[in-house]
C-alpha cells in the first residue's frame, strides 16, 4: 500500500509538493501561534501575580507609621494583600532583575555601587477586585508617608494598566491567530481534497474495475489515505524544522527582553511536545481531507 502511495506521489510530484507546501505553511503558522499564545499567557500571568499598586515610601519613615498605613488599607476591606518591601529587599530585587550587569550595578561608574540607601522602601498592594482599586488608591494618595515627586505628585505605580493593555493584546493575538489558523486550515483541506479528488478522478476506470472484482471501499481508499498520511508527516517535519530555526535565531533577542519572565532557550521537551501537536493536527487534517475527497467517489 505504501508502494502504491509512493507511486501516486511520483506520478504527480507537483500536486504532492503543493499539498505539502500548503500544509507546512499551515502548520508553521499554528506552531508560531501556539508559541506566541503561550508566551503572552506567561507574560500576562507574570504581571498578574505582581502587585497591582506599588506606593514608594519616604526615606525617614518609621515601621510604626508603615504599620498604621497597612492597617488603614486593611480597614477598607478592599485589599487582598499588602506587602512591605524594605530598602534592603528592594536592593535584592534590583540585583536580581539586572543580573550581573556592572553598569547597572554601578560598580564601574563614578557614581559608586548601588546600595540600599538610594532605593526607596515600598508597599505592594493587591486589591480584591477592579472596583476596590479606586478606594485603595485614594488611601495611598492621602498617606503622608508615601513619597512625592518634585512635581508634588505621589509616587504610586499602577501596573494594572499594563496588565489590562497586555490582556487586550493577548486577546487580540489569540483571536487574530485563530482566524488565520482557521483560514489556512480551510485552505489546506480544500487543497488536499482537490488533489486527492483529481487523483481519484484520473483513476476512475481502475477504481471501477476494482469495485467490480470485489474490492471493499476501504481497500480502494487505503493508498490515498497513506498518501495524505505521508504529506502530513513530511509537512509536520518541515514546519517543525522551520519553527526550530526561527526560535534558534530569535532566542538571543527574546532572552534579553523576556529575562526573568521566560526561560530561554525553549526546553527540548516543549519542542518535542510542539512537534507531536503539529503531527497530530496534520494527520487529522490530512485524513479528514482525504476521506472527504474519496468518500464522494466511492459512493458513486
Amino acid at each position: 500500500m505504501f508502494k502504491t502511495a509512493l507511486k501516486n506521489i511520483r506520478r504527480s510530484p507537483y500536486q504532492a509538493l503543493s499539498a505539502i507546501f500548503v500544509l507546512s505553511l499551515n502548520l508553521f503558522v499554528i506552531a508560531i501561534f501556539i508559541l506566541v499564545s503561550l508566551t503572552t499567557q506567561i507574560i500576562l500571568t507574570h504581571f498578574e501575580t505582581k502587585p497591582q499598586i506599588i506606593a514608594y515610601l519616604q526615606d525617614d519613615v518609621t515601621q510604626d507609621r508603615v504599620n498604621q498605613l497597612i492597617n488603614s488599607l486593611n480597614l477598607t476591606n478592599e485589599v487582598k494583600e499588602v506587602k512591605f518591601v524594605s530598602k534592603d529587599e528592594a536592593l535584592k530585587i534590583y540585583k536580581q532583575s539586572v543580573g550581573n550587569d556592572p553598569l547597572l550595578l554601578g560598580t564601574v561608574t563614578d557614581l559608586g555601587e548601588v546600595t540600599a540607601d538610594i532605593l526607596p522602601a515600598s508597599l505592594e498592594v493587591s486589591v480584591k477586585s477592579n472596583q476596590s482599586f479606586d478606594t485603595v488608591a485614594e488611601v495611598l494618595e492621602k498617606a503622608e508617608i508615601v513619597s512625592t515627586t518634585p512635581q508634588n505628585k505621589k509616587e504610586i505605580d499602577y501596573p494594572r494598566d499594563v496588565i489590562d493593555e497586555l490582556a487586550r493584546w493577548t486577546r487580540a493575538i489569540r483571536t487574530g491567530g485563530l482566524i488565520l489558523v482557521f483560514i489556512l486550515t480551510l485552505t489546506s483541506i480544500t487543497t488536499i481534497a482537490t488533489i486527492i479528488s483529481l487523483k481519484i478522478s484520473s483513476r476512475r476506470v481502475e477504481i471501477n474495475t476494482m469495485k467490480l472484482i470485489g474490492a471493499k471501499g476501504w481497500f480502494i481508499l487505503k493508498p490515498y489515505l497513506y498518501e495524505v498520511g505521508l504529506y502530513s508527516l513530511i509537512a509536520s517535519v518541515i514546519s517543525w524544522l522551520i519553527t526550530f530555526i526561527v526560535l534558534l535565531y530569535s532566542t538571543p533577542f527574546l532572552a534579553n527582553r523576556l529575562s526573568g519572565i521566560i526561560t530561554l532557550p525553549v526546553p527540548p521537551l516543549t519542542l518535542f511536545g510542539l512537534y507531536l501537536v503539529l503531527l497530530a493536527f496534520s494527520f487529522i487534517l490530512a485524513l479528514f481531507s482525504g476521506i472527504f475527497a474519496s468518500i464522494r467517489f466511492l459512493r458513486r
Partner: protein
Amino acid sequence: MIQFKSVTKKFPTGNTVLDSVSFHIHPGEFVVITGTSGAGKTTLARLMIKDIAPSSGEITIDGEDIAKTKPKHLHALRRKVSVIFQDYKIIPDKTVAENISLALQIANFPPEKIKDRVEHLLNLVNITEKENLFPSQLSGGELQRAAIARAIASEPVILFADEPTGNLDSQTASGIIKLLQKINSTRTTVVIATHNQDFVNLASQHLHLEKGKITSSIPKNKENNKERTKKSDKKDV
C-alpha cells in the same frame, strides 16, 4: 444457484433490454447464453453482480435475494460471482502478474501465498512467460487468458464470461473454451454469454435471448453434465 424471476430491465432511454426474464442455473452447470449483439447478455452479467439494478423482478444468487444486498456488502457478492468482461477491464498500468495479484489482495488472500498462486494461475491459463508484460503488450487471446486468470484467482462460485471469444480467431477461441470447461470441471458454475452458436452443444443448459425474452432449451449433452455435477470433489484451480 442463480435464479432470475420475472426480471425486467428498462434503461432511462426507454429501451427495455430484458422483459420478464426467468431462468434457473444449478450449481456446477456450464451454461451458454446466446443472443445477437445488444440482446442483453452483458446486462445479465451486470445484474448478477448488482452493477445495475433490475426495474422489476427478483434475482437470487446462492439463495440470497441480491436486491437486499447492502452497498457495503457488495464486495462479497462480487467475489462470489466473478465476471470476465467483454473489454477485459485489465488495469493498463499494472503487469499481468500485478493484475492477478491485485484480485488476490482484494480477496484477502494471505500475502505470503500470493506469488505462488499467481504463478499457478499463469500456468493454468498458459501465459507464464507474459507475467511481467503490460496489457498493451499482449494479444487479444493473451488478454482474455489474463482476464480469466484474474477472474478465477479468488475461487469464485460462479464465473460469468461475457463474449470470451468475441475478438479471437477460431483456434484461440477453442483454447479459451477448453480452459473454461476445465474451470467448470472443478464445480465452478460457468456462464458464457456469446453470439457464437458453436458452443451451444457444450452447454448443460442453453439460454437464448431475443427481443428481451429468454428461452431455455434442453441441451444434447445434459445427461453427461448431470453426471459431472454429481462429482463432489472440487479440484484446485
